[in-house]
């Protein structure tokens, strides 16, 4: 079985369910970079954020697609991401913010075994 590049915690799955119900629509994620609330995953209603034609899809968490820019993927590709939830008030347009929580990307290095079985991703 191939190694997933992005996974989610139980807390994340529960929050995704809650947001799906609140918004009545499917959701997607886009990893942000840069200052302030950057370097964190942003959650949007599908169709609200225009995914870039070169953006890389890392996988799906709890049925929602997870993207990032190819430039960011280039230096993050050696690490596995787990999307978790922390208390706190972010800014940005990520839709969980009114609930007083933020999605956060927890990273760890892949094991050698995982590296050999990584899901293939095409990057332009």
């Amino acid at each position, binding site marked *: 079985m191939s190694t997933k590049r992005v996974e989610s915690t139980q807390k994340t799955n529960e929050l995704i369910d809650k947001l799906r119900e609140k918004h009545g629509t499917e959701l997607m994620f*886009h*990893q*942000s*970079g*840069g*200052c*302030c*609330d*950057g*370097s*964190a995953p*942003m959650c*949007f209603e599908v169709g*609200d*954020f*225009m995914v*870039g034609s070169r953006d890389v899809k890392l996988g799906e968490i709890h049925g929602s697609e997870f993207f990032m*820019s190819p*430039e*960011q993927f280039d*230096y*993050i590709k050696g*690490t596995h991401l787990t999307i978790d939830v*922390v*208390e*706190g*008030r*972010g*800014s*940005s*347009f*990520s*839709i969980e*913010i*009114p609930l007083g929580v*933020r999605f*956060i990307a*927890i*990273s*760890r*290095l892949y094991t050698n075994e995982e590296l050999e079985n990584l899901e293939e991703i095409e990057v332009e």
Partner: protein
Amino acid sequence: MGFEKPKFKEKYENFIGGKWVAPVDGNYFEAISPIDNGVMTKVAQSNKKDVQLAVDAGWAGFESWGKTSVTERSAVLNKIADAMEANLEMLAIAETWDNGKAIRETINADLPLAIDHFRYFASVIRSESGSISDLDSNTVSQEIHEPLGVVGQIIPWNFPLLMAAWKIAPAIAAGNCVVLKPAEQTPVSILLMMEVIADVLPAGVINIVNGFGPECGKPLALNPGIRKIGFTGETTTGKLIMQYASENIIPVTLELGGKSPNIFMESIMEKDDAFFDKAIEGLVLFAFNQGEVCTCPSRALIQESIYEPFMKRVLARVEAIKMGDPLDSSTMMGAQASTDQYEKILHYINIGKEEGAELLAGGDKFENDAYPNGCYIQPTIFKGNNKMRIFQEEIFGPVLSVTTFKDLDEALEIANDTIYGLGAGVWTRDVHEMQTLTRGIQAGRVWANCYHAYPAHASFGGYKLSGIGRETHMMMLNNYRHTKNILTSYNTHALGFF
């Protein structure tokens, strides 16, 4: 010297059309201070309806403000500056409590710079003009500046009042009215500033709506009544802002952060003098504002021939950084702005350790006896290489990544090996090196033998993914106005075509 914890009202409404206006749906959210993670007050949790009220109030205000003379506008900007200056200490304390930063910074940097920004734009609009050209003996071309109308501005939480001043001052100086949404982590100090300046400000010129990004920021960016949107923050929201702006075909200004290199050439150690001392401080400025600066010099590149002795001096200076009560004027570093930032920074410190970077200082949270529940992190230094994530991703905390280089070419290669290009620093006694490096670095602001200076009369902005447009400097006025060309013919004869 210690200052008293500030007192806030129980709750604050929005400032719209020169008045305090309750949010339409009656909702408020708790403003938390990262100093103790306690609730400081409540502010309006606005939505699309409140944004519409503010945009309407802006256009009502624009009826007269857009037609004021530069003399009148300049006088208002000066009065804003005077009112802020008369209340400098109160605003500085509020800013410290709202954001977490040390009081010595808000009193000596944030507030004086914000005040000066209004004075700077008050003065430059008095001394500039449009232009007139004689195109031929009968044709005159006039280039005239006109304001855009109502503009939307979404500001960050790292310098709440200063970033408000950077955006508001040029916009209103150019004759626009503003609808501004503060960051949800720091929504309060700007409201105290509005209380202080309300009497000198014509109604509708500055409108403040607080709320959450998806509920209040998004409808502001999408509102068809705004003629421009300015945003400072991260890249994904920056892309969304551009996408929304495309719906209404309005211009955007984006400032999206960086991973700024700070280069130290071996000549700095030729003498152990005042300049060398300045260079040491120049490196330690990564800890300024707890590292929550878009231009934080978060990558130090040090020539390998001086690495050991230079770092020895640097580490002694880092050890001397005093943490503690942000309201004590001897405290050098305060709290990170919010709990989620705090968690994110600690996580990046773990990434650095996992990637095998060598920990040279800090590396953990700071237990603050004065406020055990606050968000404090030790100034942290890693040594590693530029391919590591801690060298490539903006951490927005007091975390410095250090690496070495052999020669000037390698310094330049590492400095530019980043997707961002906002700030950079170069330290050398050699003028030839200085010229090659400052021109070779792909960044909008390069500090040469200094760092973290933000005068109003120097432009600021990014190359590459750090954003679009410039802030500060009088050139900013053109981001906030149209150019109208009036082409006049004094020839009484027809062209002869028809």
